[in-house]
C-alpha cells in the first residue's frame, strides 16, 4: 500500500536536491525556468489523467490555462475606481476582496485581491468546463478532437480580440500573489527559491491527489472506461459523469497552473492560449505514455525546460510536431511504458522469457 507514495517521496527528494545543486554550483538562474516548468507540469498531469485514464483527447487545454491566467490577471489589474460608488464594490471592499494599490503613474487603483481573483478564476473554469464538457464529451474520435480544438481556438481569438484582455499584447504588471504572510508568488529575485518550492510543492500535491484518485474506486472506473467504454457502461459505471468530472478536474489543474504562472511572470499573453501550446501538451503526454503520470511529468519537465531555455531555437514548434509524428508512428503508447522497462530488465539480466511465464 505505502509503495504507491514512494515515487512522490523520491520526487520530492529530487526537487530538493536540484535546488541545493543550483545553490552550490551558482546556477541559481536555472530556478526561473524550473519554476515555470513546474506550473506547466500541472497542466500536463491533468491532461494525462484525461487522455490516459479517461481516454478523451483534448486539443484545447491551453484554453483552460489561459482562462485561469487571464481571469486572475484581469481582476488583479483592472482599476475599479470609476465604479467606486457601486454598492457591490463597497461590499467586496469591506470583505477584503478588493484592495487599493498603486497604479503605474503613482495614483490609487482599486483591484481585486489575488486570492479573490484566484478563486474567481477557478470558479469560472469549473463553470465553463462543465458547460462545454457535457456536450463535448458525448462526441467521439474526430468530432471530439475538433470540438476541443475549436474550443481552444475560440478562447485564443477572444483573448486576442478583446481590448480589456490586452488584445495582442496581453496583460502586464500583474502584482505578486501573497499566499500567506511571507510567502509570495512573484518573479522578484529575492523570493526566487521560495517560488521554486511553491511551484514544485504544488506539483507534488497534484501528484499525491492523482495517485490517490487512480487507486480509488473512481480510478478503477476510469480505467474501465478507457479500455472498454460500453462494457463499463453495462457494468453500471456512469461513464458520462466520470468523464465529465475528470474533464473538469483537468481543466482546474490547467487553470491553477495558469493563475500561478501569471503571477510569477507578472503577465500573460495570448500565446498561452494558442493551438500550438495545446498541441505541445498533447505531444508531451503522448511521449510520456498516455496513462503514465510520472512519464508525462518527466517528459514535460525535460521538454518544457529545454524549450524555455531556447535550446530548440526557431525550430521550437517543429520539434513538438515531429515528436508527435514519431511517437504516434512508432510508439503510440508512449516511450516510458512499463513494458519497455520490463523488457530492458529482462534483457539486462540475460534471461529469455516466453509468453505466459511470470517475470
Amino acid at each position: 500500500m505505502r509503495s504507491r507514495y514512494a515515487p512522490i517521496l523520491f520526487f520530492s527528494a529530487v526537487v530538493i536536491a536540484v535546488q541545493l545543486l543550483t545553490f552550490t554550483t551558482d546556477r541559481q538562474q536555472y530556478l526561473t525556468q524550473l519554476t515555470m516548468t513546474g506550473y506547466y507540469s500541472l497542466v500536463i498531469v491533468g491532461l494525462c489523467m484525461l487522455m490516459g485514464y479517461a481516454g478523451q483527447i483534448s486539443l484545447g487545454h491551453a484554453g483552460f490555462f489561459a482562462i485561469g491566467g487571464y481571469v486572475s490577471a484581469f481582476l488583479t489589474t483592472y482599476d475599479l475606481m470609476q465604479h467606486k460608488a457601486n454598492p457591490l464594490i463597497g461590499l467586496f471592499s469591506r470583505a477584503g476582496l478588493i484592495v487599493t494599490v498603486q497604479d503605474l503613474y503613482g495614483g490609487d487603483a482599486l483591484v481585486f485581491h489575488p486570492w479573490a481573483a484566484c478563486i474567481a478564476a477557478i470558479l469560472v473554469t469549473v463553470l465553463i468546463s462543465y458547460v462545454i464538457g457535457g456536450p463535448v464529451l458525448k462526441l467521439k474520435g474526430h468530432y471530439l478532437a475538433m470540438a476541443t480544438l475549436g474550443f481552444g481556438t475560440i478562447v485564443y481569438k477572444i483573448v486576442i480580440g478583446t481590448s480589456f484582455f490586452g488584445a495582442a499584447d496581453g496583460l502586464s504588471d500583474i502584482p505578486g500573489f501573497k499566499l500567506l504572510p511571507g510567502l509570495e508568488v512573484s518573479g522578484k529575485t529575492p523570493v526566487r527559491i521560495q517560488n521554486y518550492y511553491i511551484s514544485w510543492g504544488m506539483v507534488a500535491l497534484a501528484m499525491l491527489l492523482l495517485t490517490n484518485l487512480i487507486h480509488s474506486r473512481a480510478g478503477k472506473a476510469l480505467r474501465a472506461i478507457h479500455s472498454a467504454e460500453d462494457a463499463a457502461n453495462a457494468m453500471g459505471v456512469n461513464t458520462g459523469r466520470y468523464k465529465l468530472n475528470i474533464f473538469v478536474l483537468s481543466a482546474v489543474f490547467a487553470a491553477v497552473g495558469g493563475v500561478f504562472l501569471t503571477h510569477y511572470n507578472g503577465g500573460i499573453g495570448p500565446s498561452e492560449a494558442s493551438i500550438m501550446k495545446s498541441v505541445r501538451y498533447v505531444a508531451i503526454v503522448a511521449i510520456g505514455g498516455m496513462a503514465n503520470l510520472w512519464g508525462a511529468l518527466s517528459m514535460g519537465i525535460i521538454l518544457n525546460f529545454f524549450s524555455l531555455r531556447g535550446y530548440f531555437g526557431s525550430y521550437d514548434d517543429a520539434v513538438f510536431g515531429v515528436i508527435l509524428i514519431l511517437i504516434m508512428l512508432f510508439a503510440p503508447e508512449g516511450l516510458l511504458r512499463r513494458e519497455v522497462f520490463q523488457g530492458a530488465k529482462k534483457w539486462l539480466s540475460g534471461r529469455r522469457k516466453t509468453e505466459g511465464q511470470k517475470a
Partner: protein
Amino acid sequence: MKAFKMFAVLMLTVMIMAAPALAKDTIKIGAILAVTGPAAFLGAPEAKTLEMMVDEINKKGGIKGSKVELIIKDSGASPEKALSFAKQLIEEDKVFAIIGPSTSGETMKIKGVAEEAKTILMSCAAAEVIVNPVAKYVFKTPQMDKHAVIKIFQQMKEMKLTKAGVLSSNTGFGKAGKEQIEKLAPEHGIQIVANEVYDSKATDLTAEVTKVKAAGAEAIINWSIEPAQSIVIKNARQIGFKGQIFQSHGFGNIKYVEAAGEAAEGVIFPAGRLLIADVLPKNDPQKAVLVKYKKDYESKFKEEASTFGGHAYDAMIILTKAIEKAGKADKEAVRNAIEGLKGVVGTGGVFNFSAQDHNGLDINAFEMLTVKKGKFVPLATPSKKEGSPKKK
C-alpha cells in the same frame, strides 16, 4: 615525457586563467527578437540588421577596443519566452544590454525585469507606455505613435478632409494607434464616422471597408503593421472607394506595396526617411547614414531594407555612441550617457534624449510619403526642410 606533460598543464592553466581576462574584453549584447512567428516581419529584419552591424563593428576593432558579442534569442513574439530569455540573458550570459523585443506586449513583460536588474533595455517596439512612465533603464527607438497620427491629421486638414473612417488591427500596434487617433481627433477637427477593429490574420476585409464607406468616410485611416495593410487598401479600391487612404508608419516596407499592387498608388503615410534615402537632398542630416544602411542591408541580404530593421540599427548606434561617450561598458555610466545624447543620427530620425524623454524623437522624425508607380516617394518636395536636428 614528464616535462612535456608539465608544460601542457602549465599552458592549459595559463589559457584558463587568460580566458576570463579575454572574456572581460568582450561586450555582450543580448537581443530578444521575434525572428519567427506572427511578428517575424519585425524580428527577422531586426536580427539581420544587428548581425550585420556587429560584424562591421568587430571588423573595425570593436567599441573602444572591445569586441562585441551578440546573443540573439528568438522569442516568436511570445511574452513568456521573452521573459524567460530576458532572465537568462541577464543572469547567465550577464549581458551588458538587451536590444528588443520586437513587440510592445513582450517589452511590457520584461520592462520590470530589466529595471530590477539595472540592465539597459533598448526596445524596438512602439507603444508609448514603454517610456511613459519613464523607467531608468528602459528606452525605445521607434517613433511615437501620436506624432504619426498628428502628421496624418495635419495632412487631412490641408486636403480639406474631415470625415475619417478608422480601421485598426487587434495587435498592440493597432490598438495604440487607434487610441491616439480617438484621443487627438477632436482637437484637430477630425470626425470619426466609423471605427472597425479586425483580426490581424484576416484575409478579407471587404465587409469592413464596405461598412466604413457606407458611413460616409472621406478618408480611410488604417493602422496595422502586418500584411492586412495591403488587403485593406485592395478591398477598399475594389469596392469603389475613391477617397484618400492613409496608412500608419507600419507601411514602411516595400513588400506591402508590392502585395497591394495598383491599390497602393496614392496612399499617404508618415514614415522615417529610410525609404526615400536616395532622393533626399544632399544636405539632409540623415542622408549619409540612411543611404549606407540601405546599401549594406540590400547588398548583404538581397531584400529591401525596411524601417523595422532600422529600429534595431538605431538601438545599436545609440548604445555604441553611449559606450564611447562613457568611456567604458559600465551599465550605470552608459545609461547616464544615453540620457545625455543629443543629435544622434539614426534611421528613424535624429535622437535627442533626456531624463524625461527616453525615446528621443519628435514629430520631425516623420516625413509624409506616398506611393507612385510602385515606389515610395516623398509627398512634398524634400527641400521643405522638415528634418532639421534640434540644436540644444
